[in-house]
């Protein structure tokens, strides 16, 4: 068992239409909205990821990819089924929420602590993160002054440098300018060489997936359509999307 990093079993996640409402509505809720329409985003998905493996996830928009990642990251409770993760998990996705008013440097500390690292460790890695993010002087300015590119760069740097055991990447490889993309790509490759690091990537960039992934999972309408060797699945997916 110890060589499996993620085990997902019969996972189902619903989006009940839990919209927020007014007091008036919530008082009436008992009578009216009991049978709220349920959207099942992930339907009975089971798979597991070996330690050190790189798994790609593809699928159309709305097929449940990001939901699946969020569930693995522990942000969503599964409605049924189980997810076992062995090790620290971090989710890297576009526009990770930083606190707007505080500086980049402080946000690094906060993110580090939220991921479960000690303040000492975060401090130790600080310089490396700042260097990788290429933010220069901006690191000591409030995050609200950042451009969207800087935002994503900082996100990438934090999650890439802080070494969590399991890394979940949501469409984040295409951030920054050309140069930063190359840099982040090679950083990804480097991480992949690390046999202890498990990575799950959600992406539409097929070429990236081809180069990085060991296996690919094809999600279609919340169900696994196929899972297998990268090239095989990707070819089929391309055919499917083309038709």
């Amino acid at each position, binding site marked *: 068992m110890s060589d499996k990093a993620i085990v997902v079993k019969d996972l189902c996640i619903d989006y009940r239409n839990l919209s927020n409402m007014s007091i008036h509505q919530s008082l009436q809720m008992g009578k009216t909205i009991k049978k709220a329409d349920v959207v099942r985003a992930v339907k009975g998905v089971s798979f597991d990821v070996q330690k050190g493996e790189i798994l790609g996830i593809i699928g159309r928009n709305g097929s449940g990819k990001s939901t699946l990642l969020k569930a693995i990251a522990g942000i969503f409770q599964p409605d049924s089924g189980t997810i076992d993760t062995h090790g620290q998990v971090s989710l890297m996705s576009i526009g990770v929420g930083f606190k707007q008013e505080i500086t980049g440097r402080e946000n690094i500390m906060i993110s580090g*602590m939220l991921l479960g690292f000690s303040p000492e460790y975060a401090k130790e890695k600080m310089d490396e993160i700042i260097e990788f993010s290429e933010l220069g002087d901006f690191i000591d300015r409030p995050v609200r002054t950042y451009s969207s590119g800087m935002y994503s760069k900082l996100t990438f740097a934090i999650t890439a440098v802080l070494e969590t055991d399991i890394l979940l990447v949501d469409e984040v490889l295409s951030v920054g300018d050309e140069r930063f993309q190359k840099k982040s790509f090679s950083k990804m490759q480097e991480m992949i060489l690390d046999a202890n690091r498990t990575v799950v990537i959600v992406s539409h960039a097929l070429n990236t997936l081809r180069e990085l992934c060991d296996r690919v999972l094809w999600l279609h309408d919340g169900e696994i359509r196929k899972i297998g060797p990268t090239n095989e699945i990707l070819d089929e997916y391309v055919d499917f999307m083309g038709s």
Partner: protein
Amino acid sequence: MKRFYNDIKKYWYFCRYSAKSDLKAEVANSYLNWIWWILEPLCNMLVYYFIFSNILKSSKEYYIIFIYSALLMWTFFNKNVIYSIKSIRMNKGIVTKVYVPKFILLLSNMILNGIKLGISLLILQVFMIFMHVPVNGNILYFFVSYIVMFLFTFGCGTIFMHFGVFIDDLGYAIAILLNMMFYLSGIFYDIETTMAAPLGSIIARANPMAFLINSMRNALLYETAPDLTLMGIWFLVSVILCAIGVRIIYKYENSYVKVV
């Protein structure tokens, strides 16, 4: 319970750091800012002092500290409760990206307001020394009152936090309630002696903030001990509120993401 303890331990540094950096951010935005933490209650105190020493002709001893000390406690409670209602929404960035026990956000805000409170309490101390307020062993109940107040705030906060996620206009309703509570908490008058006979003493006991403020103030200024049975009851109520709040949050926190 054990989970709660572990989570507090695990996220304690985050709480502290987040509170500190938020404070720093507030300061960074303007020159006067940290002075505002003192100025705000201080100015409010002057307003109430001016109005009520003229209208009510209060003959209370140390009337100015009488108002100020109560105002500090009230401000802390008020700010945290209001914050708790919109806290999940305000921290959307964090909540949607990483798992964090949601009451930690409230705790962090309480630390932030606690630091401000601490500064104001130092000012209060200066006032007291300046006005030669005598102090005896009953001052201990000042701290007891504050501890119960912290618990009560946390309990209310966690419960409001949960409902605040789902109910959009809860903020308005609570604001009105808080406003009423403010006037019924005897910040600038003594409830028991000012209000008509049965009502005054009922409110002074049944309104937790009125009771806590009064106990705190009596210990601080008039060397008297509070009603210990009542203090015990409110302590218990607060603990129960905390337990309910934390339990609700643990149960539902993962559905918050789907709403905000």
